[in-house]
Each structure stands twice: as C-alpha cells, then as structure tokens.
C-alpha cells in the first residue's frame, strides 16, 4: 500500500458534475424567475402556447432545481470529498472510474429527457414526483450506479472510520432510494391491457388518502434526504476545510445525525393537517415537527460554534460568509417549518404563499448557498487555479442575500394576508371577500418576489461567470492550498 502523502486524487467525475450543477442551477432558477413574474404579470403565461403556462412550467422548475441542480451538486461534492476523507483515489480503480463516468452520462442525458417530458405534460401528477414510470426506471438505474460508486469507494478505503459527512451522504442515498421507490409505485396501463393507449402512461398504486400519505411521506422527506441531509454533510466537510477549524463537538454531531434520522420521517403528515388523514397522524406530524428543531439546530449550532474565536474569517473570506449565512438560514427555516406545522397556525398558513416562502428561505438561503460555497472551495483544488475574483464573490453574496430576504418577507406578508382574508367574516358572519379579492391584493408582493428572483439569478450568473473564469483564467497554483481558498 502506498503512503497517504503521495496520493493524487482524480477529479474527472467531480468536474463533470460541477459543470452540470451550474447549468441546471441556471436553468432551474431561470424557470423559477419566469414563474414568479408570471404571477405578477399574467400576460407572460401565453408566450409559447401550451408549453409556457405557469402550471406546465412549475414542475420543470421544481424538478430541475431538485433533481438537476441539487442532486448534481450532491454528486459533484461526493466525487470530490469522498476520495479525500476515505483516503483513496478514483484513479486506483478502473472499475469505479468507469462506473463514475457512466453514472454521469446517464444522469445528464436522463435529466434532459426527463425535463423535456415535463414540458410536454407527461406527468404522473404527484408533486415533486411527476416523472412517469419509464423516467423513474432510468432514475433508479442512476441511483444504483451512485450506490455502486459509494460502496465501491468505501470498500477500498484506507481510512477505516467513516467521517461525519460520509454518514450523511450514505443516509441520503438510502433515504431517497426508499422514498422514491415506494412513492412512485405505479402500473403502466399499456402493459396492463392489450397495448391500449399511450405507453408512457401509468396509474398510481395508491388511491386517495393513502396516496396522499405516501406522497407527503415522500415529499417531506425528499426535502429531508435531498435538501437537508447531504447539505449538512457538505458543511461538515467544507466548513472545517475552509476555516482550518475542527468541528466543535463530535457528540453533538452524533446526536444530531441519529436524531435527524429518526425524527424527520414522522413529520411528513404535517403537510396534511386538517385533511381527511386520521387525526392521530396529523397530531403525530405536528409533534414530531416541533421535536425536529433539536437535531436541526444541533447541526447548525455545531457549525456556528466551529467558528468560535475565528469570526474574523467571516469578514475576510466570502466562502466562509456563504457557509455561515447558510447555517443561519437553515436555522431560520427549521424554526419556521415547525411553527407552520402547529395545527392552528397551519389553518391559516396552508395553501398560501407563506409555504413557498418557507421553502425558498431554506432552498435559496441554505441549499444553494452551501452548494455554491462548496464548489468555490473545490474549484481551485480541482483546476489548480486561484478563484478569479473575490470582489465578484462579495457582490454576488450581497445580491443573493438581499434577494432571499425580499423573497421570504414578501411571501410572509402575502401568505398571512391571504390566509386571513379567506376566513374574514363581516358582522353578520358572512364571508367578507370573494376569492378574486384575495388574488388581486397580492400583486405588489408577487412583484417584489419577481424582483427578488431577478436579483437572485443575476447573482447566480455572477457565480457561473466567476467559476468559468476560475477554470480558464485564474492564476495558476503550484501546490494545493491547505485551508483558506486563495482568491484574486
């Protein structure tokens, strides 16, 4: 066995996934911004016929940012950091290298086809699980390939103990596999008959209330295992690496990890409060949502305490700035979620714009910030060049932070306004507002949200530009930087 010092890591696959993370991030946010503007200015709906309506485009937005941007970000970071914490190079195994490349190409082509299928309205109809059965099969293969990569690399590792980040990525792999498989169970109607109708169509294995339960067990926990678990894994690796600080507490890591694993899954039914789901399940969902604050804040506090005594780095290093504000938005969003899951609050909040508001302070403030910070940290090490411009990073940071704040504040106001108007009654007990009154009143908030979208994606374009320049024109580095990422 060779000595660790001489190990050259191979970033071929990590680089490929980095490119598509940026590509899908841009596309997903572009569609998102269009959607935001359509709600403020409905004329924008009918520009490209049936393919450009809000309703048709919304799944394109959600699925592109989830399965396009976030998932490729997860893959990119995995193929980067896993080698380093397991102390083994991808170059050492031809097999794993080949699997990695197939994984990438199948993923990329699959993602394009999947997106096109949604544009054409080929949909299974469940939120965040719209892909039809034949796309699902491709997704399962992609996921299995990733599994082979994970366990293959772990199998040939030199470092025996698995680092915290590996726990989280393993959990992401297992959790998504379980959720995705069960929720997407369906029967293709073409094969269940004598070849009648469209081959692309299928019908869900579950009906009505059962389908709703499975769907939100999935929907909520896809957020858990896609938007929380691997992102926490990222910060556990990249924050210490960038700051040169050791993780504050191992025990807190342990508690937060197993706590999150156990508690998160129960909370799914908080999406179904006041519905026809049995009452005890609703109460369970509510209660566990509140308990969920503990493991969520456990991780976030562990991260913030890791920076103890080193807060000067926050002013000096924009990558640290991104990560610290990401943990902060994570705390905001994980206290907001449980508040919305309280039954009496939910009676007002559910079905309103407060919900997308909540989703976006988590996703824009936490997920996207963490993925961008990770890629900024990785780029100089993968391409052996300095970050092209620190100044651009700072501009980007403030643009996007402002955008997130505009987004959630406008949606808080919009959501609560809407929720209160729906239930408002006059002195005789009659409803005070017709539904359309509660729509037109939101126009200013929808406009603010549109502005926030434009601001956020402009920041993302700066990020993409900075990354591109780093890859092609950054000052070359003679040796790998140890902690703080060098930037011009």
């Amino acid at each position, binding site marked *: 066995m060779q000595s660790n010092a001489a190990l050259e890591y191979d970033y071929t696959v990590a680089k490929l996934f980095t490119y598509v993370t940026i590509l899908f991030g841009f596309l997903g946010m572009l569609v998102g911004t269009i959607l935001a503007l*359509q709600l403020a200015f*409905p004329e924008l709906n*009918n520009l490209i016929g*049936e393919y450009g309506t*809000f*309703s048709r485009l919304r*799944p394109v937005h959600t699925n592109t940012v989830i399965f396009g941007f976030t998932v490729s970000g997860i893959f990119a970071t995995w193929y980067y950091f896993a080698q380093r914490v397991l102390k083994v190079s991808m170059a050492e195994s031809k097999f794993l290298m080949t699997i990695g490349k197939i994984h990438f190409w199948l993923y990329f082509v699959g993602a394009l086809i999947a997106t096109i299928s949604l544009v054409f*309205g080929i*949909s299974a*109809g*469940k939120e965040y699980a719209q892909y039809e059965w034949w796309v699902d099969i491709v997704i399962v293969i992609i996921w299995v390939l990733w599994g082979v990569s994970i366990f293959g690399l772990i199998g040939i590792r030199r470092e*025996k103990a*698995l680092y915290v980040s590996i*726990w989280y990525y*393993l959990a992401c792999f*297992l*959790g998504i596999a*379980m959720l995705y498989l*069960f929720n997407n169970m369906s029967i293709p*109607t*073409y094969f*269940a008959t004598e070849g*009648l*109708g*469209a081959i692309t*169509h299928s*019908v*869900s294995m579950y*009906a*009505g*209330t*059962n*389908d*709703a*339960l499975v*769907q939100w067990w999935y929907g909520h926990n896809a957020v858990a295992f896609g938007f929380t678990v691997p992102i926490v894994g990222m910060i556990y690796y990249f924050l210490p690496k960038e700051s040169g600080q050791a993780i504050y507490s191992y025990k807190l890591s*342990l508690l937060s990890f197993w706590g999150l*694993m*156990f508690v998160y*899954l129960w909370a*799914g*039914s908080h999406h179904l409060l*006041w*519905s*026809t*789901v049995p009452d005890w*399940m609703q109460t*369970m*969902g509510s209660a*566990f949502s509140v308990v969920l604050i503990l493991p969520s804040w456990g991780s976030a506090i562990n991260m913030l305490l890791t920076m103890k005594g080193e807060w000067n780095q926050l002013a000096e290093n924009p990558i640290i700035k991104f990560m610290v504000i990401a943990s902060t938005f994570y705390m905001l969003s994980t206290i907001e979620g449980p508040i919305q899951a309280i039954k009496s609050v939910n*009676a007002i909040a*559910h*079905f*309103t714009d407060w*919900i997308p508001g909540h989703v976006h302070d988590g996703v824009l403030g936490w997920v996207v910030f963490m993925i961008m910070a990770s890629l900024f940290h990785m780029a100089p090490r993968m391409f052996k060049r300095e970050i092209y411009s620190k100044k651009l990073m700072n501009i980007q940071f403030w643009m996007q932070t402002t955008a997130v704040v505009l987004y959630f504040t406008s949606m808080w106001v919009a959501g609560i306004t809407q929720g209160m108007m729906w*239930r408002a009654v006059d002195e005789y007990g009659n*409803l005070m507002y017709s*539904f*359309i009154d509660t729509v*037109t009143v939101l126009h200013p908030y929808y406009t603010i949200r549109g502005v926030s979208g434009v601001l956020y994606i402009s920041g993302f374009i700066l990020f993409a530009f900075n990354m591109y320049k780093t890859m092609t024109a950054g000052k070359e580095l003679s040796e790998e930087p140890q902690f703080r990422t060098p930037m011009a």
Partner: protein
Amino acid sequence: MFFHWLEKNPFFFALMVGLVISFAGLIEIVPNFAKAARPVADLKPRTVLELAGKNVYVKDNCIACHSQMIRPFKSETDRYGEYSLSGEYAYDRPFLWGSKRTGPDLHRVGNYRTTEWHESHMKDPSAIVPGSIMPKYTHQYTNIADLETAYAEAVTVKNAFFVPYGPEFKRTRAAWEAHLPKVLADAKAIADDMKDEDVKKAVANGQVPEIVALIAYLNSLK
C-alpha cells in the same frame, strides 16, 4: 462504544440508518391502508371521458394552483360547500388535493359552475373573472383528448384494485372499440352545451378536444 464501532463498519452503519428511517413509515402509514381507502356509499368510478379529463387536469398541472380539499372550517364550507371526506377520494389515482390555492378550491366545483362557464373561462379567465391571473388554456380547444389511454386506465384499476367498472371493461382492443360510442355520446352531451363550433364539429367527427373531457371531469367534482 457502539457508534464508534458502527462508524468503522459501513454495512452495519447503512443497515442501522435503514432501520431508523423506516420506523415512521411503518407506524404512520401502513395502518391507514386497511381503513381509510374505503369508498363512501354510492361512490361511482369516473367514466372514461371524465378520466380523460382528469388526465388533462394532470397534464396541464392544474394542481399547481388549485386544491381539491375542503377543510372543516366554516369559512371553507361557506365558500366551497361540504367539507371533504376520505371515502370520496377512494378512486382517485393519483390524489389531487394540491398544496397551494393560487386559485380557489375545486373539490365541489361541479355544484356551482356550468359547462358554459368553464368554456368561456378556460379560453380567457380574466374576461370572466376580472383581475384573474390564470393563464388562457386555448390549446385545450384544439388538442385531442386521449380517450384510449383513459380506457386503459379504467381497465387497469378494475383488474388491479377491484374498482367497480362494469363487465364490459376488458383488456382487449375489441372491448375498447365497443365502448367508444358510449364515450363519444358523453362527449356530445357536453359539446351540446358549448358554443364553440369547432369543438362541436370535432366531437361529431369522433375527435374529442381536451376541453370537453376536462369539463366532463370538472362537472363530476361534486
């Protein structure tokens, strides 16, 4: 310590994670399968035309803005009608409760909107409801609904989940061709209440535009 040991044994680590994350599903979801799926009395499965309309509803993703879940609050029952019951959804695959009300709830829209209203509204929503931000769905007047797929779906759920469709629902093409006139008659009944001449003509020619199927579906929501 157990956790230190676990961290050095990936297989058992993964097994442990798998165990810990499956609890909730087993305890919270599985018990409901036995009970809540039962249909309310007299619940009829949707006709083939209505199913085709449901598929248009899914294709154009109406769920992005419309719920089908009336919660048990006075403000909701005043606005939309009786609150929703679990058994009413027993044949809904997928469930279409939605999670956002950018527009109003539709679970009982069939009680208070008519074919004519939908016809004008889907063409130009803001002409009917001033201030509406709903897109125009003019393509539904020209796109042809996929009735055969809807039939295949009915047969599939009949065979797989015992949804009470009649004995004439069979897996064969011949059975479908025998059933088609019934679907076209349903479509004609809807088209008769519509104004659009092109739609009427298409239906008479055996080509049912999506809007006709969609209206049949919306009218069935009661």
